[in-house]
């Protein structure tokens, strides 16, 4: 039983990290059909910028806040310099642009900061909490709650604010949204800014567990993307569910089957799910309009 609990905690820890990254994908996707492959770099900027500022003597809370501001600025620049000029291009072209941006951001961070791994102190100490003989780090719980709070805020934004509704309208039909007077380009810009902020907050929360480096975004984005697909891309609740499920699959795969094949086990189950439910667990099925 202790073992089961430990695997569960391990899965929830990793899953919460994936979920936090996966949530970042949803907003840009739902407003512009673009999967932003630079999302992992927002996560990296959050962690690395906080580390650099904290190392320079800035108190951790202020360093975190500044890191989020930096990430938002980068997100806005990315939109202004790379996405906006190509706004009439197809989604595939825009996705390729985001891949390019991700490589650029990684390279700049590697040269401007350094290529070493860094860490941040855990917010509530490093002593694990013991539950039923199994140990969980307080930071894992923070990540889990952080992901939940972000989804809640995102939901409030989408359903309670004018900008949120404009985002939903843009997602549903861009042409129609433009016809009723919504500045869709502005909506997409806003979604880049918010996604960057979500990514950066995620990066700050997970860094005490996963550590950070200039290229930490690549793998996190890959796992986060897989989680978002599994949950149904574009749906924040689906992103959380997908992330947790992926983490749990990996942990139980490593614990009960074989640690060498844990990724293979997880990805095979994802494929199986997507065969049965191509839209993911919580995805809305799209209807091609003719």
């Amino acid at each position, binding site marked *: 039983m202790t*073992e089961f609990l430990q695997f569960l905690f391990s899965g929830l820890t990793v899953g919460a990290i994936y979920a936090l990254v996966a949530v970042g994908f949803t907003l840009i996707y739902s407003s512009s059909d673009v999967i932003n492959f630079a999302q992992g770099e927002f996560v990296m900027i959050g962690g690395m910028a906080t580390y650099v500022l904290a190392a320079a003597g800035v108190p951790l809370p202020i360093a975190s806040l500044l890191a989020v501001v930096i990430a938002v600025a980068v997100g806005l620049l990315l939109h202004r310099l790379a996405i906006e000029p190509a706004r009439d291009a197809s989604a595939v072209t825009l996705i390729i642009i985001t891949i390019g941006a991700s490589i650029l951001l990684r390279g700049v961070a590697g040269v401007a900061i350094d290529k*070493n*791994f860094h860490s941040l102190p855990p917010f509530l100490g490093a002593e694990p909490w013991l539950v039923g003989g199994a140990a969980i*780090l307080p930071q894992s719980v923070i990540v889990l709650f952080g992901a939940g709070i972000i989804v809640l805020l995102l939901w409030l934004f989408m359903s309670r604010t004018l900008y949120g509704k404009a985002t939903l309208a843009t997602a549903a039909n861009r042409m129609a949204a433009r016809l009723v007077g919504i500045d869709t380009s502005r909506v997409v810009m806003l979604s880049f800014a918010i996604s960057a902020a979500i990514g950066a907050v995620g990066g700050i929360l997970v860094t005490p567990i996963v550590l950070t480096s200039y290229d930490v975004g690549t793998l996190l984005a890959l796992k986060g993307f897989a989680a978002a697909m599994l949950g149904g891309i574009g749906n924040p609740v689906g992103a959380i569910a997908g992330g947790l499920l992926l983490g749990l699959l990996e942990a*139980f795969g490593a614990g009960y089957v074989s640690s060498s094949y844990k990724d293979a086990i997880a990805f095979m189950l994802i494929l199986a799910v997507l065969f049965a439910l191509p839209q993911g667990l919580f995805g809305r099925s799209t209807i091609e309009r003719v």
Partner: protein
Amino acid sequence: MASTAVGRGVAVLFGIAALMAAGEVLADVKIGAVLSVTGPASFLGDPEKKTLEMYAADMNAKGGVSGQPIKLVIYDDGSDPNQARTFAIRLVEEDRVDALLAGSTTATTMPIIALAEENQIPLINFAGAVQAVFPVKKWNFKTPHTDLMACEKIFEDLKKRSLTKVALISGADAFGKSMRDQCMTITAKYGIEVLHEETYQPRDSDMTAQLTNIKGKAGVQAVINPGFGQGPAIVTRNYRQLGITVPLYHGHGIGTKQFIELATPAAAEGVRLPAAALLVADKLPPDDPQRQVVVEYTQTYERKTGQPVSTFGGHMYDGFMILIEAMQRVKSFDKAKVRDEIEKTRGFIGTGGVVNMSPTDHLGLDLTAFRMLEIKNGDWTLVQ
């Protein structure tokens, strides 16, 4: 105004022409390097490149090798073996270098070894794995310790502490796999029994599932973690999180001060690992033969780059010095003569250990090159 600009341009042109003419007369010694300065292995190639440039400039300031200045040709392979091969071919065919100091990783080194062999150029490489030097190839030498030696050192220490039943948790990257395989080849020799094995992916963020299985295995007396990068730091954290009490050993791939920071000093307390003397330069006893070399290299490197020293730059220091000393001894840059002389290197004291090459050993290090370290109060200490 315009005429002075033209005048300056002409003067510069003459200057360049004069320099080129001078270069031709001098016939410098050309040393070619292919290093992984960028990409995933940049933590190897970057200090190697800095060390090479630093010491070549230093040597030139002192008058060069046998009166000839050193000309470096350095290419960055981006940690890609295909690129490494392409650049090595360019060094051989276009730049016509006299010797090669090349290959930061095992993957980038293997094609260069074949190339050096084919073109009969002396090569000193900086790869970690044992296959980068065994079986012995005529033109190929290597300075870093092998993973096999790291295993031997760990097993030796285990035997001293009468711990014979171990579990392995290894990184699924090339380094972790190679070291794990090397360890498995010598278990019988040291009477070590491996009760359980786990692996993790190099970028995994949580290893508690694997460690829970190790914890649940009855009779495990010690755990060995062959790996490098941030993986061992997370293993160490999770190890303490689960409250596992048996000794934890890491490989030689984590030899930077940063490891203790990442793993947190509390979790790293009592962790043991084999490492080069360079890591504990200031803690070596005054009569240690390596003390002077490692202290000098550490000071020079840290002063000139402003970065903490790593064992990897030290490997380049050793390779560069072995090559230059061989050239100075034979007073020639003739490839065959230099090669023969490198093979005769005896009692060379480098950052990696005391090097004694022979026709059957192109590495020349024995187990004394490794020190067993234990982390205490957030710092390395030598295990007596």
